[in-house]
């Protein structure tokens, strides 16, 4: 290509530049305090993108000019890897945003600094949903502030209800009604193949998701996964009860007896948006998909059905902002000051401007939210469902418990064993795990 001498000179030049870059510039440690915040959503704390957020940041900087806030946005699905690697290497961020399922592990290893008591008082006195404590409170102290709040419910297609002669404003309330509606809503083609299921089951993907979408049924029948579910150290599995068996059997009957659902349909949310399913159970936030991907669909959101004699229950889960105990006290102080500011009643609507339709920490914020203003029945439904909320267990081995339970109930649904066998085997394994 080039002449030999030229090649050599270019090569040397490149290597000198490379060497310089690689040996590189030292980093400067400033006098100021840096607050390192790791969060997941691209628009969260994105002051460069949203004016309202920038205004709130400015308020903070006006009061504390010596504090520099560094926000790192990590893709939602990757937060686990990145955060754990950083902790393992001893360089944790000061504020991190994680889901409540991981909280038990962080608290169990003494990593979370609880919110100062006075801040906590102020927060709840300003009208924050009391249910927030379900996930974020441990041993009487609030561990962090809520970010993304989720409550599970029954999403149903109102047009399909009407078509099947069911009242579109009255979703099924009991298990019997639920099964009955699902049967009526199922459609088959001439060859007998199901073209639309009355209800779509989540049975593939991460076992935590499989268990999470089903566990409300377990709770409504009065059963929990583990003894003392809201303490970190429960040692016994408690799901092998008639209530537990009934909860597993519910799906089995719907698959094989009623034939109103099927294991051959993909993720329930995909199925619902493609109108391959009339009902599905998942986080309320799934309706963002209905709104963008099926804008003409008329959908409703209601409580999860309960068995006769059972109690209403549903999953309530939150991603929260937590302060790392490993940071210096000066940084922790500033961190709590920052968090208090961005979550107070005045600033919450500003911070949430890019997140219409989210369950905000206060009903007052939701009343101002244009998404809810356009859908008053939705706000009604959510307000109804919230008090039924149960948090996931606070047990530190929850991941492994979910993995095991999810595996065995899926086996039962696939017809490999009866519900009783599945729970007996799962119980044995979970007890082994808890005994470790």
């Amino acid at each position, binding site marked *: 290509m080039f002449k030999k001498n030229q090649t050599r000179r270019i090569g040397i030049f490149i290597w000198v530049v*490379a060497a310089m870059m690689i040996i*590189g510039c*030292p980093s400067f440690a400033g006098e100021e305090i840096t607050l390192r915040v790791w969060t997941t959503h*691209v628009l969260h704390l994105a002051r460069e993108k949203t004016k309202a957020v920038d205004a709130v940041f400015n308020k903070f900087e006006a009061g504390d000019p010596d504090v520099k806030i560094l926000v790192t946005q990590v893709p*939602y699905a990757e937060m686990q890897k*990145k955060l754990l*690697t950083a902790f*393992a290497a001893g360089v944790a961020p000061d504020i991190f945003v994680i889901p409540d399922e991981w909280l038990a592990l962080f608290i169990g290893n003494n990593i979370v600094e609880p919110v100062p008591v006075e801040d906590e008082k102020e927060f709840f006195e300003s009208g924050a949903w009391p249910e927030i404590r379900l996930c974020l409170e441990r041993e009487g102290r609030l561990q962090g502030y809520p970010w993304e709040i989720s409550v599970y419910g029954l999403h149903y297609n109102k047009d399909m209800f009407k078509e099947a002669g069911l009242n579109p404003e009255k979703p099924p309330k009991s298990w019997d009604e639920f099964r009955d509606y699902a049967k009526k809503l199922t459609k088959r083609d001439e060859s007998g193949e199901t073209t639309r299921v009355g209800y779509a089951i989540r049975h593939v993907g991460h076992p935590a998701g499989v268990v999470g979408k089903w566990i409300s049924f377990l709770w409504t029948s009065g059963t929990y996964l583990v003894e003392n579910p809201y303490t970190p150290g429960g040692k016994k599995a408690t799901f092998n009860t008639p209530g537990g068996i009934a909860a597993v059997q519910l799906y089995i009957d719907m698959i094989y007896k009623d034939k109103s659902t099927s294991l051959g349909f993909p993720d329930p*949310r995909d199925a619902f948006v493609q109108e391959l399913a009339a009902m599905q159970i998942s986080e309320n936030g799934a309706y963002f998909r209905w709104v963008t991907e099926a*804008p003409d669909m008329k959908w409703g959101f209601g409580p999860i059905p309960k068995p006769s004699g059972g109690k209403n229950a549903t999953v309530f889960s939150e991603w929260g902002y937590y302060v790392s105990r490993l940071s210096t006290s000066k940084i922790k102080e500033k961190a709590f000051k920052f968090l208090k500011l961005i979550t107070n009643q005045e600033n919450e609507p500003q911070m949430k401007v890019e997140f219409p339709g989210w369950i905000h920490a206060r009903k007052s914020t939701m009343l101002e939210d244009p998404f809810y203003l356009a859908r008053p029945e939705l706000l009604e439904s959510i307000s109804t469902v919230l008090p039924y909320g149960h948090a996931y267990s606070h047990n530190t081995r929850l991941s492994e418990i979910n993995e095991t339970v999810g595996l065995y109930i899926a086996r039962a649904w696939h017809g490999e064993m009866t519900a009783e066998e599945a729970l007996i085997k799962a119980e044995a394994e979970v007890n082994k795990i808890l005994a470790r």
Partner: protein
Amino acid sequence: MIEKKGRSLLFVGKTMDYMLLVGIAIVMVIPFLWMISTSLKSPPDIMSYPPTFIPNPVMWVNYAKAWEAAPFARYLLNSLTVALFATGGSVFFSTLAGFGFAKYDFPGRNILFILVLGTLMVPFQMTMIPLYMIMIKLRWVDDLKALIVPSLASAFGTFLMRQFIGTIPDDLMDAARIDGCSEIRIFWSIILPLCKSGLAVLALFMFMGSWNEFLWALIVIDSTLKKTLPLGLATFELPGEIIAYGPLMAASVFVIAPIMILFVFTQKYMTKGIIITGLKG
């Protein structure tokens, strides 16, 4: 192999060959076409049942949305910087090492070579924590150096060049030595020109590896302005497993385009490696 025009591979004629080529091409390209079609669709269109190939309406705006969703121009620059240095360096060092392993028989050669290969046999999820700790000590966290320097040594590259250089006859080297050439001269003037196709392939793959590296970039880069393209793609996956498919596919097209260009460019270097004239073994 002499590129014979008109010779058929399947012994049944040129038309069959072409049909086969086109058939395979269709299988290879359909997902890619689906990707492009999705990149121009609106969300209801993407999820429509039954699915359609032609977007309606055609959402050219997805490309604009994708570009704005993240500072892609910056990500592009970062990816390019990292990839160029990583590629140049790893090709150079791998060729040196491949030459050493192929043409010199020193004690411990095989063990050292297996050691080099051995580094490929552990999943990165295991070694990334200790590697991250090293980056902390070197103060290379959140710095592009962390993406470049560890990849300068490539087991893949070393192995590839060892195989390619291994096919070069020793006689050539011996003849040069008799003529008084230094080992370095031999490397530079004889070996390098003869493994052009190997170098081209290696450069292509090293570039691709660096360009598409996601996990390590995720772990080691914190600031938005230092991120690389694959991290930008992950921007479109939102909490609640909601994915902005349209802009995601559009962004994927940006990410592939430079590699397509590089591919076409390097294929030009895949010419004959050895022309043996009058050299009897």
